[in-house]
């Protein structure tokens, strides 16, 4: 067999019309030559009418594609009322052609694509099923978690501490670094606005409130969603593909209790701690800029910090963290359980898990702002 590229230049097969109206076929009627032969046949056959004779004694080899080309050309000619007689076909080629027409033709057909309304309906149906599925998952896992809280001896401590380490301890460097950089960025923006008015010391309020209340909890949640949420989906998803989750069920072990509860609990503990740590590095980032850009020293910064930033600011930020943790862990685990069958499905659900959890975290953050305002501890209350 030659490469398709070389044969395209120098075909080793031919189909040509003789002077007496016989079509002489010769050479290797194989896959690489078929595009060329197809063009030749189309040219030659357009002109002829009535009875035709194909002389196939020159054909040296034939594969499925070559045989199908013969078979398909014949049936097209017959449809237009012309008859073709094959001559000099070698026994094995004839057999191949016959086998193709017996086996193949019934199956070859245009695949049907569903219409737009069809697709819309499917999408809506699937979305509502997913929503219902998530609701029942939340219900079930809440029951399991409540049961565990009543009877804490049933908590699986080993996976809990493992997840605490993987999702909490090992996330410290990245969360700390990114929060520090966010502090730098925020303080820079403030510095530009404050310096012309000589209001440099207000950098403390700016950095303190923005970081503690909003930026740090959000950035921590986003990093945790990317690190741990995706890991949960991939892990549980792969366990579903390899039927480990089913094996667990048949052994009478509740996957919610063994797989999901420790993850949720671990994140509920880890994310507030990470947020508290990131508060420190984030504010420190702001302090560095305050000193270098606005001549507000560390001591002056911290003095003012004590008097203008209230524990409420800190508690609101850290208080959001467990809520975000539950959202991330629940969505991550639920998407993992939604995986079915294939490796591709694991990838798809991992993406969905990260996007959904970041989305829901931000929605809840907005809800928190409104809620805190109603409760009278929003920003305007101060």
């Amino acid at each position: 067999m030659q490469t398709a590229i070389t044969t395209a230049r120098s075909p080793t097969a031919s189909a040509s019309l003789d002077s007496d109206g016989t079509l002489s076929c010769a050479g290797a009627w194989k896959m690489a030559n078929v595009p060329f032969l197809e063009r030749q046949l189309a040219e030659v056959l357009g002109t002829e009418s009535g009875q035709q004779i194909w002389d196939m004694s020159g054909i040296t080899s034939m594969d499925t594609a070559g045989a199908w080309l013969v078979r398909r050309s014949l049936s097209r000619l017959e449809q237009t009322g012309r008859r073709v007689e094959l001559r000099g076909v070698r026994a094995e080629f004839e057999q191949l052609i016959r086998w193709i027409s017996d086996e193949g033709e019934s199956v070859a057909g245009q695949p049907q694509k569903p219409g737009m309304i069809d697709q819309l309906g499917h999408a809506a149906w699937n979305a509502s099923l997913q929503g219902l599925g998530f609701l029942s998952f939340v219900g079930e896992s809440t029951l399991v978690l409540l049961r565990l809280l009543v009877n804490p001896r049933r908590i699986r401590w080993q996976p809990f501490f493992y997840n605490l380490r993987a999702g909490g301890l090992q996330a410290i460097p990245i969360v700390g670094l990114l929060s520090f950089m966010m502090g730098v960025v925020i303080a820079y923006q403030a510095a530009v606005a404050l310096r012309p008015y000589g209001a440099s010391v207000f950098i403390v309020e700016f950095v303190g409130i923005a970081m503690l209340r909003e930026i740090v909890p959000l950035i921590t949640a986003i990093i945790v969603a990317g690190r741990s949420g995706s890991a949960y989906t991939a892990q549980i998803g792969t366990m579903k593909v390899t039927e480990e989750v089913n094996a667990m069920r048949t052994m009478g072990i509740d996957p919610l209790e063994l797989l999901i509860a420790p993850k949720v609990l671990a994140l509920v503990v880890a994310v507030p701690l990470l947020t508290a740590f990131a508060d420190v590095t984030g504010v420190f980032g702001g302090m560095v800029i305050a000193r270098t850009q606005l001549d507000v020293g560390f001591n002056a910064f911290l003095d003012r910090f004590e008097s203008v930033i209230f524990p409420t600011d800190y508690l609101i930020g850290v208080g959001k963290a467990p809520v975000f943790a539950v959202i991330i862990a629940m969505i991550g685990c639920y998407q993992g359980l939604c995986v079915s069958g294939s490796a591709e499905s694991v990838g798809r659900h991992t993406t969905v898990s990260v996007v959904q959890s970041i989305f829901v975290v931000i929605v809840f953050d907005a809800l928190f702002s409104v809620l805190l305002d109603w409760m009278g501890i929003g920003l305007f209350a101060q």
Partner: protein
Amino acid sequence: MRFDDKIPEPVIEIRHLTTRFGSAVIHDDISFTVLRGEIFAVVGASGSGKSTLLQEMIMLRRPESGSIHVLGKDLSAIGERESMELRRRLGVLFQHGALFSALTVAENIAVPLREHTQLSAEFIREIVGIKLGWVRLPANSAEKYPNQLSGGMLKRAALARAIALDPELVFLDEPTAGLDPASTAALDDLIRQLKYILGLTIVMVTHDLDSLWNVAGRVGVLGDGKLLEVGTMEELSRSDHPLVAEYFQGSRGRGAKEQAWNRR
């Protein structure tokens, strides 16, 4: 389609092959030849290196020493271009099918055709239809995804992909593993029929004694790192070698033999 060959030419020639995993010797000086047009089966207990041998023949693994010639090409001295060309003349049916899970069955079979030929999309679809018909898959399975197929259908679809380019040489890794007896028998018949019509040479790794009796021409038995014996099933079933006898003359081996005899 090679009916005019008078003297069977060797398709695979393996000489003094040695494979090691670290200090463990998997193959110790193995030599054998597979001839054009035959169905050659490799058997052996689990861990005897059957799958490793297969991987070496399809260029997924290099042996530590010894030579493998496939279709006249020395695999140890083969270049990038040549090996691509050689791979196109081989078809492989992996043990678990290895269909691409993101593609439908029809798209899976079309992959080698799209990659390696310049056929039009319509022509490719028709060829895919023919291959599906050959492996007896119903037309509605063409648009299904691999995870929607049963084990037997998966193997058939994978076989259709393996023969998509009309290869000269087809490797089958445990083609009947995990199938029910009826599907096994049907797949055996299919393999024999494809070999006959397409003039294939087939190398298969299998554990299935019924399958060996029904399909295999010659069988090579691996054990203790050596190729213990090569011969037809009749010859092997009368072998004196203790490991070979253990494999073929146990109760299951005798049962399979009787069944095969009854069927003739």
